[in-house]
């Protein structure tokens, strides 16, 4: 029974992705594009050469962390829509420390990363506290926290970090995660050390969830808060802690952009979507760290490959967004796929 369960946990995301791709092909056909050229351009754009691969991994990096952020909260039955805001404050804090502190790399870089994590953690702590103590639903609070993050960050960029400019200066080299070695290996893509950090964090999160008393408590609270209280666990503490860790992961995702890819932060007209996409990544990855890594890679390659579609096949990038949306749609409606799978297996059993 458990093996069956595990198998469908793997099968459902794969079927969802395939259905999304098929639906995307149909849309391309209907709109008068050749889906085969379209998809081969997409593939080329994501994996066609070393540069493309480097850029794909670079894009994947923050998705791993924002996906982990959402997935971790999900394990406590909390829906952290605020990953987006946590990414933004993490990004801002990382750049801020990167610009303003003078220190050798061995202190400066960890400090900037830690700062981003703490900023995200604070952004997660507030909804966690409100949920635990007053029962305010975390979805509402985190949505609002996203706007607070977006607009205060823009304000700080304009009036604190710069003098009415839209982009900050670049961070000092001692705070940068960019890597000559990784970059030159991939024809000077923007690939940076962040991917190693992201993978390392994924392992840590797996360990916390599966092997520690903290993970045991957080999952128990997520599954059944009443039984957890009965068993002597502090439900409020665990809710807050889950949101704090989730927020810290979101903040780290922001640091990837601030210290790795861009080295600065610009005024944003809208959300970065790294946090929001993290929701889809977590869903697709079934809230497990390994699943999140694979789902993040899929998202990274789709987004990166999309750049090649207009030039390589004349397909507008919007179509890639449609395909991604369709994949999420099919994942979210995994109930239907599960039902179909059960029926199919039932018939075979007969």
């Amino acid at each position: 029974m458990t093996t069956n369960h595990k198998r469908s946990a793997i099968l459902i995301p794969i079927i969802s992705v395939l259905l999304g791709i098929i639906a995307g092909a149909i849309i391309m056909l209907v709109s008068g594009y050749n889906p085969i050229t379209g998809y081969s351009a997409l593939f080329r754009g994501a994996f066609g050469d070393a540069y493309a691969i480097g850029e794909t991994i670079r894009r994947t990096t923050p998705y791993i962390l924002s996906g982990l952020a959402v997935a971790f909260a999900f394990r406590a039955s909390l829906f952290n829509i605020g990953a987006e805001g946590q990414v933004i404050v993490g990004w801002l804090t990382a750049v801020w420390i990167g610009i303003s502190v003078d220190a050798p790399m061995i202190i400066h870089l960890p400090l900037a990363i830690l700062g981003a994590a703490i900023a995200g953690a604070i952004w997660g702590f507030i909804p966690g506290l409100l949920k635990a103590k007053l029962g305010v639903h975390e979805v509402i609070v985190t949505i609002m926290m996203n706007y607070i993050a977006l607009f205060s960050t823009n304000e700080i960029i304009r009036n604190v970090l710069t003098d009415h400019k839209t982009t900050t200066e670049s961070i000092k080299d001692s705070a940068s995660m960019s890597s000559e070695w990784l970059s030159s290996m991939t024809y000077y893509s923007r690939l940076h050390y962040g991917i190693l950090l992201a993978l390392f964090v994924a392992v840590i999160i797996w360990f916390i969830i599966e092997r520690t008393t903290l993970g045991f408590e957080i999952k128990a609270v997520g599954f059944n808060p009443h039984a957890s209280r009965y068993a002597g666990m502090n439900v409020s503490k665990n809710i807050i802690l889950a949101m704090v860790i989730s927020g810290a992961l979101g903040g780290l995702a922001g640091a990837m952009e601030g210290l790795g890819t861009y080295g600065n932060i610009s005024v944003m007209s809208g959300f970065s979507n790294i946090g929001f996409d993290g929701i889809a990544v977590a869903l697709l990855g079934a809230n497990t760290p390994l699943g999140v890594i694979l789902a993040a890679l899929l998202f990274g390659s789709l987004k990166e490959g999309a750049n090649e579609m207009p030039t390589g096949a004349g397909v507008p990038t919007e179509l890639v967004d449609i395909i991604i949306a369709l994949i999420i749609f099919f994942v979210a409606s995994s109930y239907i796929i599960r039902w179909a799978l059960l029926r199919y297996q039932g018939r075979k059993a007969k």
Partner: protein
Amino acid sequence: MEYVIEMLNITKEFPGIVANDNITLQLKKGEIHALLGENGAGKSTLMNVLFGLYQPEKGHIRIRGQEVEITNPNIANDLGIGMVHQHFMLVEPFTVTQNIILGKEPKTKTGRIDIKRAEKEIRELSDRYGLKVDPTAKIRDISVGMQQRVEILKTLYRGAEVLIFDEPTAVLTPQEINELMDIMRSLVKEGKSIILITHKLKEILQVADRCTIIRRGKGIGTVNVSETTESELASLMVGREVNFKVDKQPAKPKQTVLKINNLHVRDKRKVDMVKGLDLEVRAGEIVGIAGVDGNGQSELIEAITGLTRVQSGQILLNDQDITNKSPRKITESGLGHIPQDRHKFGLVLDYSVGENMVLQTYYKEPFSKRGILNLKEIYRYAKKMISAYDVRTPDAYTKARSLSGGNQQKAIIGREVDRSPDLLIAAQPTRGLDVGAIEFIHKKLVEERDKGRAVLLISFELDEILDVSDRIAVMFDGKVVADVKPEETNEQELGLLMAGSELQKAGEGK
């Protein structure tokens, strides 16, 4: 005599198991026919086949001699089969009438619901069968027993000729049970037929005409109730001799373990539920708390275990003040708690059996060290517990959700008892379980007592209270109103005490 319903040689398979294996059930017109079996024996499956929720692989169904195919519940309804569910399907803020007509509303010419006509019809039905239901009352304002009658009315209103009662007495007080028995008798007198699903032998002997027994999916046979005995029924159901009397020596109470002084507790709606309760439980005795549900028992347990705040008063465990301490503090002071609602409190259903076994001890060595779990040790311990407490599960990694109720309860009892608590609180430990599991649980409680532990038993089953307890504290309106010895009292007296009569008056009624 003609049969209203005949289920002949029904076989229903699920992947991996045969839930019903060649079962035959024939219901005569105007009889009360009991369907007896342990939990998981296949009673519900059989009834779901009759209700059209499952299609049988083999066998057929005849209604009044006509062969029928019941492919969905609407067909069952049209054939005059009605079900009184164990868990009521009622809309709380609606009135009795609104609930009964729901989905089958009578309309006036202009298309509005004709509530007046419905009320009149329901009142007539209620009078005819002696149900005494007020059609205009709101569901949330009436007692559980009354709600059940609304369910009965619902099936009658829809023209049911055959009523299926699914474990109807599980939620009722002794007095309500007697009233229900009368109602069932008046229903059959009016020509209805009844299938009574139960695993309570006393009720079958009291009210049923015939009884069909199933054991592990197989039909064992049908007996005339007048020609059988309780122990014969029990051994037919379980497949072996069952010991009804709880085997125990007189208690040898020692020092006081639990002492409660003038306790006041409020429920979630801020209503006083425990109002100045005093109670003492000593080592080596089982104190049973008898009372009708809703007289403060739940709040009392939650207060002792730290799940609810105490307004005033004092709770001492081994002379240590545990009033308003955290559940973990209290557990560590020597409390074991078999909770009333095992799904809500007792288990994390999505956790494995092994994980549930260490639900309160996971943070201690050897199960973890410096915050890191030792899974090997956890599952080694779980395997030991599974065999020690006879928890039937494929393995320790199986989710608690997929275990049967009895095995879930055995897992909880094992976990709570194995910590060697000085005080063991067992709240309705046998609710919904069959005689085999009940026997096991009662034996464990007595064993714990004999090891010198204090046991506090809360139950709505008077049989259980009388059989297992060494001392009975009757709870009424938030207070202990009487302290009696089981050998010096009986069900009638307890029933009256539970309803608030004074001890002396109750004594006169004996």
